[in-house]
């Protein structure tokens, strides 16, 4: 029997939080609403969310917000200027305004970070939970494959991609993603092993659920939170890895204002013209702080075990 949605505000809240939902949709929406409430109660998590939203806005409005062009600079007049009123974060070795480059670079950063998370986390989660649940030789094979990927120096894989697909930030992302998933798999597997023999899993098995259903619907949700924590912690590392790959020529092509590449560039000026690396460094720090807070908040809100 379907219930109609009541129109007034207060009643909406009551309807969502009702202890006796009358349809699956109501239950799901109610749970989502409850999760959001739990999340919102954590002020720091909101700060994190706020910064991330700010990042997205800056990325969208980069053209409007940046005071100068991120690509044009004058070697003779505006090179390596310290922070001032005209250039809030100073200029780099090609005379370009660092703030403008940061603003435009936020697009690339978002792109890199989201793509790696979207590619690597699900793969890791899947491999880990399947391995943990199935056990036996499936576990052994999957874990050995994981080991092979873990043992792979990222640089080798990156160079292989250059051979196959050419330089560029997209291929750098794929290379990073492919070497990032093994830790997630290991963590997911570790979590799976602890709940594999619990009663409620046994109950679901008894009811006759197929292994895939068990893994996807019951085990994975419980592992998601650990993986999320690890992924958010990785955000900074991912951006910095993209910078490291830039040393090899795989990565953002100049003059792209990718933050990691900007830091790599500022490496030679670190001792005297500290601002060249400091600007992007601070930006990376802020963004990873935001993702961290966000991740923690999500973990606290989503993890049924931590529910108060």
């Amino acid at each position, binding site marked *: 029997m379907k219930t109609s949605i009541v129109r007034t505000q207060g009643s909406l809240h009551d309807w969502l939080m009702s202890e006796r939902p009358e349809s699956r949709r109501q239950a799901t929406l109610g749970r989502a609403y409850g999760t959001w409430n739990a999340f919102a109660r954590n002020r720091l998590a909101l700060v994190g969310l706020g910064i991330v939203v700010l990042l997205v806005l800056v990325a969208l409005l980069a053209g409007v917000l940046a005071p100068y062009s991120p690509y044009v600079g004058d070697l003779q007049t505006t090179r390596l200027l310290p922070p001032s009123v005209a250039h809030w974060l100073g200029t780099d070795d090609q005379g370009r305004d660092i703030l403008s480059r940061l603003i435009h670079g936020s697009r690339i950063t978002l792109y890199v970070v989201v793509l790696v998370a979207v590619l690597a986390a699900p793969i890791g989660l899947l491999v880990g939970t399947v391995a943990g649940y199935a056990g036996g030789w499936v576990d052994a094979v999957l*874990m050995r494959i994981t080991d092979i990927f873990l*043992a792979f120096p990222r*640089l080798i894989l990156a*160079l292989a991609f250059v051979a196959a697909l050419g330089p560029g930030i997209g291929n750098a992302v794929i290379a990073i993603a492919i070497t990032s998933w093994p830790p997630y798999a290991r963590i997911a597997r*570790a979590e799976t092993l*602890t709940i594999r023999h619990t009663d409620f899993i046994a109950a679901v098995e008894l009811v006759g659920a197929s292994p895939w259903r068990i893994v996807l619907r019951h085990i994975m949700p419980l592992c998601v939170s650990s993986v999320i*924590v690890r992924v958010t912690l990785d955000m*900074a590392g991912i951006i910095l890895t993209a910078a490291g790959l830039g040393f*090899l020529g795989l990565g953002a092509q100049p003059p792209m204002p990718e933050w990691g590449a900007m830091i790599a560039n500022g490496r030679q000026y670190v001792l005297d013209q500290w601002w060249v690396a400091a600007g992007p460094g601070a930006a990376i720090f802020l963004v990873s702080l935001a993702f961290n807070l966000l991740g923690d908040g999500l973990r606290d809100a989503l993890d049924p075990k931590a529910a108060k």
Partner: protein
Amino acid sequence: MSAAGQAGRVGRSARALRSVANFLVVIALTYLGLLAVTFFIGRVVPIDPVLAIVGDRAPEHVVARVREELGLNKPLYQQFGIYLQKVAKGDFGTSVLTSNPVLQDIRRTFPATIELATLGILIGAGLGVPLGVWAAVRRGGLVDQVVRVMGLIGYSVPIFWLGLMALVLFYAKLDWVAGPGRLDVSFEYSVPLVSGFLLLDAARAGEWEAFGNAFSHLILPASLLGYFSLAYISRMTRSFMLNELSQEYVVAARAKGLSETRIIWRHALRNAMVPLVTVIALSYAGLLEGSVLTETVFAWPGLGLYITNSLQNADMNAVLGGTIVVGTIFVGLNLLSDLLYRLLDPRTRSR
């Protein structure tokens, strides 16, 4: 012993033997897979390995001759087969860059990196675990926030920047530690290298001044690496501890009257160690990989630098040798953590 009991014993040892055999086969397959993929990637890489040997000035006939000498004109699978044969005999080939057998190069550079990573993980885990516990116990308090932000700084700041700043501060300005490199020039030929671990070799030879100097060189880069793993380990410890402290057995233990300290360290932490072990093992592996930039900044002649340099010159013998070593460590660490897992957590023992 009854016949059934004896049969049971035989059955169990047969099973044990089979699982050991399985284990070895799996390991061998892992290595084979690792080597094969690296080998083929190495040949696909757009760098001419002959270039590193003969350089840019060599006339074409020298280039062609060296290519023939290295067997690079043979089909790929044949080259791989030859390589495997040599490896089985213990010959990992010669590095074209250093003109030394790869095994000798690795024996020289590997201990340097291990020394660094081990001290790093000791610092990281030694400080990270207690900090994580503290943050979990005083959840939401000042310590919790400070630990989190401190860890975050260590994690989101580029390592070469942090390393250089640390050098500028502790070495150049404060003179608290020795500078880049493993040893001062004056001690260069005074310590006979046996294991390659300077600390151990110096202690063995009784050269205590050299020991102090080596330690002084080691402490800064190791602390740097330790700082990075500390960030991660303390966070995960906090997370696991929070899990444990919210369990019912903690409430029960408190009700029983056990002291809080005992509950935290003896019970909760012990349970949290189970997944934590995996984390620490992963972190150690991560340090080995992350040592490359540290080795660059601190002029540390380790394996990371060796592999990177070989890679950039397509010195495949060296890269393969290095990959085997690194791969062995990773596989070993994972197996170790698996083993510890099974030992520590009765729930994971399959029935």
